[in-house]
């Protein structure tokens, strides 16, 4: 039982880290630009496709990843230049419509370019295999790499946001963007930077999971909704909130699916328990979100304080 718990907890953390990578950029886009971007999930998908394509091209996953990252950054900057920069000042409904349209375009675009069939990326040899945990328990090495890479990114982001001049501007922008602009900062360049960087982080998340998930059109849609839940729980504009909420959502979702039925079995008969557990488990994170919102309508770590 404990072994299962440990494995599932690790899976939950790994899932949470992934959510964090996607959510970190998006929460800044929401917070600083007061903009709703539905198309962030497809950037994750594009990252995965870039990784798959460049890995196939170079024959090496690490090399493919190294090319996929700047490619995702460039892709984000191009999107910002072509579409997003014209949306910042529009109302939320226009942003919803345009980014919804963008989802349709990119989902269909990858289908045209790479076909509707899922692509698979082999785990590179040096990252395959498993490492021992306790006793006979082993855990896939690649998942450990994902956790480590995600944590390293989180630390890097923390340093960037809290200890650099750009980070200071980001935090100030999340609190009051017009004021930052009034103080003479080129806020449009800051927006562009945030957007490109956010796209790269989402692309990085997509590239990292390419070897363990199937790369297919629409893979970003599910993750987008979960990212929204993370951002709502963590508080719009807060990278710290996104981290805490992402790990929380990852753990609750993964552990709920495994242990929900087990816990229920002690309360009711087994077949009803597994039925109820299966039905309730996918809803757990939404119930968590509703509960957080009920007590703290602007999330756990609101960037704008009480005003938002």
């Amino acid at each position, binding site marked *: 039982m404990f072994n299962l718990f440990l494995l599932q907890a690790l899976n939950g953390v790994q899932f949470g880290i992934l959510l964090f990578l996607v959510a970190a950029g998006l929460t800044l886009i*929401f917070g600083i630009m*007061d*903009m*709703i971007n*539905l198309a962030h999930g497809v950037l994750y998908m594009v990252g995965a496709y870039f990784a798959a394509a460049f890995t196939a091209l170079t024959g090496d996953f690490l090399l493919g990843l190294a090319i996929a990252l700047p490619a995702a950054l460039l892709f984000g900057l191009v999107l910002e230049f072509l*579409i997003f920069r*014209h*949306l*910042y*000042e*529009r*109302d*939320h*409904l*226009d942003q*919803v*419509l*345009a980014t*919804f*349209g*963008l*989802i*349709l*375009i*990119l*989902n*269909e*675009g990858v*289908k*045209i370019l790479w076909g509707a069939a899922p692509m698979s990326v082999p785990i590179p040899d040096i990252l395959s295999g498993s490492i021992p945990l306790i006793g006979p328990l082993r855990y896939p090495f690649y998942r450990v790499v994902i956790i480590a890479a995600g944590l390293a990114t989180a630390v890097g982001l923390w340093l960037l946001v809290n200890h650099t001049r750009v980070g200071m501007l980001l935090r100030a922008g999340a609190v009051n*963007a*017009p004021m930052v*602009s*009034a103080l003479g900062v*080129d*806020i*449009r360049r800051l927006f562009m930077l945030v957007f490109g960087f956010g796209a790269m982080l989402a692309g990085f998340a997509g590239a990292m999971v390419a070897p363990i998930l199937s790369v297919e059109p629409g893979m970003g*849609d599910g993750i987008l*909704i979960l990212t*929204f*839940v993370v*951002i*709502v729980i963590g508080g*719009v504009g807060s990278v710290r909130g996104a981290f805490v909420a992402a790990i929380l959502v990852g753990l609750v979702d993964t552990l709920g699916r495994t242990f929900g039925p087990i816990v229920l079995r002690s309360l009711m008969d087994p077949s009803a328990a597994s*039925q109820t557990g*299966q*039905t309730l*488990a*996918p*809803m757990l994170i*939404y119930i968590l*979100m*509703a509960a957080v*919102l*009920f007590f703290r*309508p*602007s999330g756990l770590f609101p960037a704008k304080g009480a005003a938002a």
Partner: protein
Amino acid sequence: MSAGESKIALGGKTARTTPDLARDRRRGIVDGRGAALAAVLLLLALSLLPPIALLIGDPFLVVTATRIMIFAIAALSLDLVLGYGAMVSFGHAAFLGLGAYSVAILLANGTSDILIQTLVAILASALFALVTGAISLRTKGVYFIMITLAFGQMAYFFMVSLSAYGGDDGMTLAARSTLLGLPVLNSDLTLFYLTLGVLALAFVGLRAVIFSRFGRVLRGTRQNPVRMQAIGFQPFAYQLTAYVIAGALAGVAGVLLANQAEFVSPAYMSWQRSGELIVMVVLGGMGTLVGAIGGAIAFLLLEDWLAKFSEHWKLGLGVLLVCLVLFTRGGIAGGIERLFRRAPS
């Protein structure tokens, strides 16, 4: 604070201090008699469709039109929330699905009467709207959009995991609903006129709601929630009521949808569906009611038309959406309006 007010002076552009004026300009015909006249003409034209279909020998036209009208009902209900309440709800398809599943689940348990099914559908969707609306309306702006989207997904995943009722694959209905024991809905023609009747009733009912005292307060809240509060109204109660009414009506549309397709599936409540409903409302013009009907007709016909060209028709739809938003300042409806205004000269 509304979303519009907080967006001030980016990169030297002038502040948008009067967002409500800008927002109202995009409503083609706000409350005028023109809207009612247009709707009456539209409904009359629809009522003449079956004989025409018979004449030109295309019975499938009636089926297509029924489907379009069902989505028009759902779009109408969303217009109350989106157009009059200024709440960008991104989970409206959930109510459509709840209505459809009310039919399927009751039918599987031996209740086939459409009156009971509709009652259950209304209660289920109204309850879901009440609970999720009460939580969502504690927030505003981007939060509200994300939360309604998340609740919609919650309902979606609930149906996906209901393996007793088809789960992910959905389930085919054994038969259409009955009315007082009679299988009258088995005829596509009866279903067509029933749907048309519901659509007309929904339009008249919503119009009555909008012109009532309640509707005026709701519209006032859209324009300036702070001022409404200052003169003694609680926007929350009015917005929540509108949200519940809209949810219940969309549930009714779901009952019709299940009967029309004789099939229910979680796909009815996917978030793409919710997005399409928003597109329908905006395409036709928000806050006009008749616009929602027109938008549903236009969107579904456009979808059919694009699908004829290529299997990648969604690409075209996406490009169209992005271009409409980018190149028609003041939204899609505003752009179309300008297009029409420019045309005669």
